[in-house]
């Protein structure tokens, strides 16, 4: 593996998933907050069918405050990995450390956003955003409302507070889900292909908005996608998964200045490099 780092800002620095410290990036590299070592996930169906290996052997690190993207083709186990970080799925083998301790179940420190929004249709926009704060039982009613209203503004949902989600577009629904998760100010934002179900224009605006929000927020984002361009526009670091059996191919640092433009030649160059990297690890069968 070629372990190399670019000295110049706006370039592409790569390292092969090892413990090599990040160098000359212009970013203050935070301490490691999530570490996967030979992580493995096997699903054993109840009906006696053979077990399915979702995550084969995955090792990577996530640093505090970094926008980390898990990039890979569908079926490579990146979402399962995210769910294990969230504590929703149990680890089958290897280690998954959160602040040096094994992940033990979900917690309010890790908020999650799904591709298909997973809103509560019986709650209004404001009701959905207040949900997490209500469940945490840490704030009084007035504070919950004030916080939720802040994130209504922040995500561009003003005027829709009392609407029910079913009456809104996919882009608006995902804004609600992001606001609901941000409202509790979690340490981690776990996002599972959040823009994959949206049309191109909506996705473009949400990427721009998320990039801005991520810059303002003191939050570590872990973002799963199969879209290379989306990954480069958002990420400080891209962890590239290979198709099954899933492994981490490379951990790449992206240091382009923000806001990033899809047509920036430097971005396109990283895009090309990443695609060839993924291509090299694609299975031989062209049908898959």
């Amino acid at each position: 593996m070629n372990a190399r780092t670019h000295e110049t800002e706006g370039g592409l620095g790569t390292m092969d998933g090892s413990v090599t410290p990040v160098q000359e990036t212009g970013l203050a590299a935070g301490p490691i907050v999530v570490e996967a070592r030979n992580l493995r996930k096997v699903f054993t169906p109840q009906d006696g069918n053979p077990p399915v290996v979702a995550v084969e052997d995955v090792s990577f690190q996530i640093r505090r405050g970094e926008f980390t993207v898990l990039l890979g083709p569908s079926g490579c186990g990146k979402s399962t990995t995210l769910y294990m970080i969230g504590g929703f799925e149990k680890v089958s083998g290897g280690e998954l450390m959160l602040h040096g301790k094994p992940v033990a179940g979900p917690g309010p420190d890790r908020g999650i956003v799904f591709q298909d929004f997973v809103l509560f249709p019986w709650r209004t926009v404001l009701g959905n955003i207040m949900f997490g704060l209500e469940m945490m039982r840490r704030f009084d009613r007035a504070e919950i409302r004030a916080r939720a209203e802040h994130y209504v503004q922040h995500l561009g949902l003003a005027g829709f507070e009392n609407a029910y989600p079913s009456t809104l577009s996919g882009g608006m629904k995902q804004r609600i889900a992001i606001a609901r998760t941000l409202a509790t100010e979690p340490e981690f934002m776990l996002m599972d292909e959040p823009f994959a179900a949206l049309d191109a224009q909506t996705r473009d605006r949400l990427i721009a908005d998320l990039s801005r929000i991520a810059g303002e927020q003191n939050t570590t984002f872990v973002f799963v996608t199969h879209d290379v361009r989306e990954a480069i526009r958002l990420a400080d670091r891209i962890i590239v998964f290979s198709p099954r059996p899933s492994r981490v191919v490379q951990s790449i640092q992206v240091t382009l200045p923000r806001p990033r433009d899809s047509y920036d030649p430097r971005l396109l160059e990283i895009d090309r490099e990443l695609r060839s990297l993924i291509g090299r690890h694609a299975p031989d069968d062209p049908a898959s």
Partner: protein
Amino acid sequence: MQPAHARGTACEPPRRGRLAGFVRRHSNPLILIALLAIWQMLVGFGLVHNPAVPSPTAIAHSLWKGFLGPHHILAIATAATLGRLILGFAIALLAASALGLLAGRNDDIAAALNPLVALWIPLPGIVTIPVLSLWLGVGQAVIVCTVIFSAWIPLYLGALQGARSVAARQLWVARSYGATRWSTVCHIIVPSALVQMLPALRVGMGYAWRAVIAAEIITQHGEGLGVTIFAARQFFDVATMYAGVILIALLGLTIEKILFPQLERRTLKRWGLVV
């Protein structure tokens, strides 16, 4: 093959007069009015001369007298019947929903309840009357229990299916915020189970309504519409008997066509869970 626009015009209904349109829009009440008019004429002109067949106006007079007359017979009977219905239905709803939601979230509980439910489904609720009257004596309790035992099966099955269909990831979201078990039930499981529970409520209410009238007719206990129509028959107050029957139909219709659609409009439709 014709072009689409040509077929479109061909499908348009032929133009008719204003009267025909009015008749079509209001066919249900118009048919009822027509039938009542024929009935009234048959009795009024003496074509049907049988004391068992009163005229619609005589029945209407009985209805009027039953509510506003000196004894308020039908008003008292209606209140008594609705009281039993609501009490029995509320108990059935609470108990069956609790059981159904538990069973929907826990397969062992579902398996334990399954034989009881399977045996109970073909059982008409009114078979509880002879059994329970042996223990409790004929009285209010037997009628209320008949309602409970008639209504609980659909309510249980609705809650069971509803609880089973809760989206796993909605529960993930709740868990990630440390939601208590009770909060999860109130804020996630019950509202999402409502998609299956609301139609079940409608079916259960239909069973309960039939059960309360049947139980009143059989037990002849206290006041009630079932008691009144049977007593009116004994005293050959045929108009009051028919008035009671019509009242039962109208109340059932109100519950079915007004109460439940309202409930649905304020919940599932508003949330976009049904169209």
